[in-house]
């Protein structure tokens, strides 16, 4: 299929959707953190289309993961609701920022280049590095012991509008803090085309002290609603390619379901290594493309 100037193999896109869905299902994230950069770098799809379409694909994967985790009784709904208001505003702000960047150019090596892809790729490298550091901290012995509850620094902070979280049994978490975390996640979502789950998970585990499995089930409702809103905002700007979204969605809901089942069956070290490998490969692809543009 033809998207912008890029000719894309449908089978390759379906395979990418399957991989992203599986990773999303395993870790309770939407998978946009790998999907958007890979669509832009590997397939050469215009970055604004990659962002909009990636959000569209996240609707399906997050819904499947949400239903699966809710059925298992995992996830703190109060955090989801607290994140939601800020997240919707953030998505709108991120979308507007991307639209503003799209009209600007920057001179690189004497040649004028569009600013948006460069800014987004740098942001992706930073974000993927954050993800890698967070999860390698888990690989160093953080993930398994965190199956129990502890009070993270953000749940110990004495901030206003604190409520009780009955599912994870935390006595005081500030809704104000949660709403601003939602704002930040929403901004990343609208700008970079990621659901924000991959950033939220370390915040929940290391910041608030959520048990790992509860953290994986938390934020999916916010992810689902904000990705729907983000898709609508991007679609209004013509940033969503329906054929591309359909190819991505062909396999991703099923693979997300398999991924969420695999969480219980596959050994944790194998999952961690696989996840780290996927993040490193994505980061290498983005850095390589960035270096190619700058040279």
């Amino acid at each position, binding site marked *: 299929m033809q998207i912008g100037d890029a000719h894309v193999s449908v089978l390759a896109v379906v395979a990418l959707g399957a991989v992203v869905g599986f990773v999303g299902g395993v870790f309770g994230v939407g998978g946009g953190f790998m999907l958007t950069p890979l669509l832009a770098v590997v397939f050469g799809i215009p970055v604004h289309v990659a962002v909009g379409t990636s959000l569209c694909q996240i609707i399906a994967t997050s819904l499947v993961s949400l239903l699966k985790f809710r059925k298992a009784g995992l996830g703190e709904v*109060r955090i989801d*609701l*607290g994140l*939601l*208001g*800020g997240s919707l*505003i*953030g998505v709108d*702000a991120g979308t*507007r920022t991307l639209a503003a960047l799209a009209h600007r150019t920057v001179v690189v090596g004497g040649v004028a280049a569009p600013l948006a892809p460069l800014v987004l790729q740098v942001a992706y490298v930073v974000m993927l590095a954050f993800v890698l550091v967070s999860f390698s901290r888990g690989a160093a012995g953080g993930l398994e012991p965190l199956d129990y509850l502890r009070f993270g620094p953000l749940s110990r902070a004495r901030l206003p*509008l*604190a*409520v*009780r979280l009955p599912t994870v049994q935390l006595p005081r978490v*500030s*809704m*104000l803090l*949660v*709403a*601003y975390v*939602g*704002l930040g996640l929403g901004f990343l979502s609208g700008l970079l085309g990621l659901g924000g789950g991959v950033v939220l998970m370390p915040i929940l585990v290391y910041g608030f002290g959520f048990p790992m499995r509860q953290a994986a089930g938390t934020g999916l409702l916010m992810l689902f609603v904000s990705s729907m809103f983000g898709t609508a905002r991007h679609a209004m700007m013509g940033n969503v390619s329906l054929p591309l979204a359909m190819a991505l969605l062909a396999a991703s809901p099923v693979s997300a379901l398999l991924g969420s089942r695999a969480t219980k069956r596959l050994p944790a070290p194998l999952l961690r290594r696989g996840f780290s490998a996927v993040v490193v490969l994505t980061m290498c692809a983005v850095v390589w493309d960035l270096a190619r543009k700058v040279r």
Partner: protein
Amino acid sequence: MGDVGYVALCVVAPIAWALVMYLVFEALDRKRPGDDRAPPVDYSI
């Protein structure tokens, strides 16, 4: 709405949302049976 107004909205809206959520959850906790709060004191004679 100009850029400044929009940024102000982005900054203020989460506060309003957090307040609403706080009031809702507090109300839910008050109704919840088996709540670990102390029961209200009966001052009637």
